[in-house]
């Protein structure tokens, strides 16, 4: 019976649940879904990670390539990150060029990485004006069940922390590059921005919404924090929100961020231990 009611009156269905302060999946209104992080699962990539937030699954593989730098920035490398929402992950997406949501997410994640300064592009320089690293970070969503920005940011940061780059010797006179793959270097990550998303439904704020909840909601809010500082407060329209509610969300994010950062660090340190044993 519940199933039919849900498809006929989705808003009423959710309102009835939320009036009892519980959600259809059994979570409380302000409860986050469990997060699982898996690292180094792709051997062909130079750094990789897989993140699950509830059912939302994203994978990120980073490939390092060599290229000459831009003339205007001779000592800076490149970090090119793209978010793909293939038709595989949800029936909402069709084959063909990236959907609007994929483009917006790509831009938002790329802006965040730039703004937060979590990575210094100068670290990617090998020889000034001649040779720099270009990191291609491709984030692919495998299962789309809400909070895609949170998942993308989490997976990208984790993957960046697992990147190992070989040592390059460059002879500028004869343009000869020699790779020593036996020694591999980590990348310096200066801070870890993490985000959480909230959905507004009537006068309630739903934490960590699923796709269904995102669809019936009247607006979304994403808060990004790094080391107790705010990195972005992104509310792309939707119904108006009072300031008290906004600050409540920010506080909640700051508290949750510690947990996420601990999770990333635990996953990454396990990988580092493994490397030492090898």
């Amino acid at each position, binding site marked *: 019976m519940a199933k039919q009611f849900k498809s006929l009156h989705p808003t009423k269905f959710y309102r009835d649940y939320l009036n009892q302060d519980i959600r259809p999946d059994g979570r409380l209104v302000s409860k986050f879904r469990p997060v699982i992080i898996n690292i180094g699962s792709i051997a062909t990539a130079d750094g990789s990670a897989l993140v699950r937030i509830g059912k939302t699954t994203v994978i990120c593989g980073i490939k390092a390539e060599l290229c000459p730098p831009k003339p205007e920035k001779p000592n800076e490398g490149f970090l090119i990150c793209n978010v793909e929402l293939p038709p595989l992950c949800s029936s909402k997406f069709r084959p063909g060029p990236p959907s*609007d949501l994929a*483009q*917006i997410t*790509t*831009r*938002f994640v790329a*802006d965040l990485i730039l*703004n*937060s*300064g979590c990575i210094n592009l100068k670290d990617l320089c090998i020889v000034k004006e001649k040779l720099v690293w270009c990191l291609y970070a491709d984030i692919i969503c495998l299962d789309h069940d809400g909070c895609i920005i949170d998942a993308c940011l989490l997976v990208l940061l984790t993957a960046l922390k697992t990147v190992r780059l070989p040592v390059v010797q460059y002879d500028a006179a004869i343009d000869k590059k020699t790779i020593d793959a036996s020694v591999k270097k980590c990348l310096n990550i200066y801070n870890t921005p993490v985000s959480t998303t909230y959905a507004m439904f009537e006068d309630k704020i739903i934490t960590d919404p699923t796709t269904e909840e995102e669809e019936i909601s*009247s*607006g979304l*809010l994403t808060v990004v924090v*790094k080391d*107790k*500082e*705010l*990195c*972005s*407060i*992104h*509310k*792309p*329209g*939707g*119904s*108006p*929100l*009072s*300031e008290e509610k*906004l*600050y409540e969300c*920010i506080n909640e994010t700051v508290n949750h961020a510690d947990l996420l950062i601990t999770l990333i660090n635990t996953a990454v340190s396990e990988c580092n231990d493994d490397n030492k044993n090898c």
Partner: protein
Amino acid sequence: MEVESNVNLSMREVNCKLGMFTRPDGSVFISQGETAVIVGIYGPIEVKPHKILINKASVETHYCPKSGMPGIADKLCESILHNVCEAALASALYPRSSIVIIIQEMQNCGGIIPCAINACCLALLNAGTDMKFLFASASCGLDDEGNFHLDPDDLFLETAAASFIFVFDSIGKGLIASHTSGSFNLAQYQSALELCKKAAEGIFDFYKSTIKKDLKDKI
């Protein structure tokens, strides 16, 4: 358009021209300092079958950059404009129809998003489309020494530590949209919000005087 006497806390000069095109149902040219946009509204008009919504109008937003095809930065801008307009429009009054909003960037010297949002609101007023509330947007930048600059231009933004864009509604002065870049702390965010809220009130007054003048000219 002086909000406060302090030089840093004043907005760039805002000029606008309503209803300059005859074809669209509503149109506006708005310039904020050197930044300028044109917005045209068509609607409610017939809707394409695959976009039809039975309980409300479908709102389409098209953001056209000054030259070339829209890239992913323009898409992000478009999504904010779309979500703001969709929230403000009383679209339930026009079921099975569509409202098309076309935003043409004329010149971008910083603050294109707030300028385009304000233009959308004026154009919707000009078109006479029913809205739940009006909306106004203001932006401010934060320099390295922690000083706020209202309505920053592109020269300032290049060196700014952070920049903020806010959209407020006219009734409860609630926050409709917030978009930031750079990093900042909570106190800075709060003061930026307060500052922009004051500036937004100035913009609501500007809407009032513009519409008043427009109606007077028509009579």
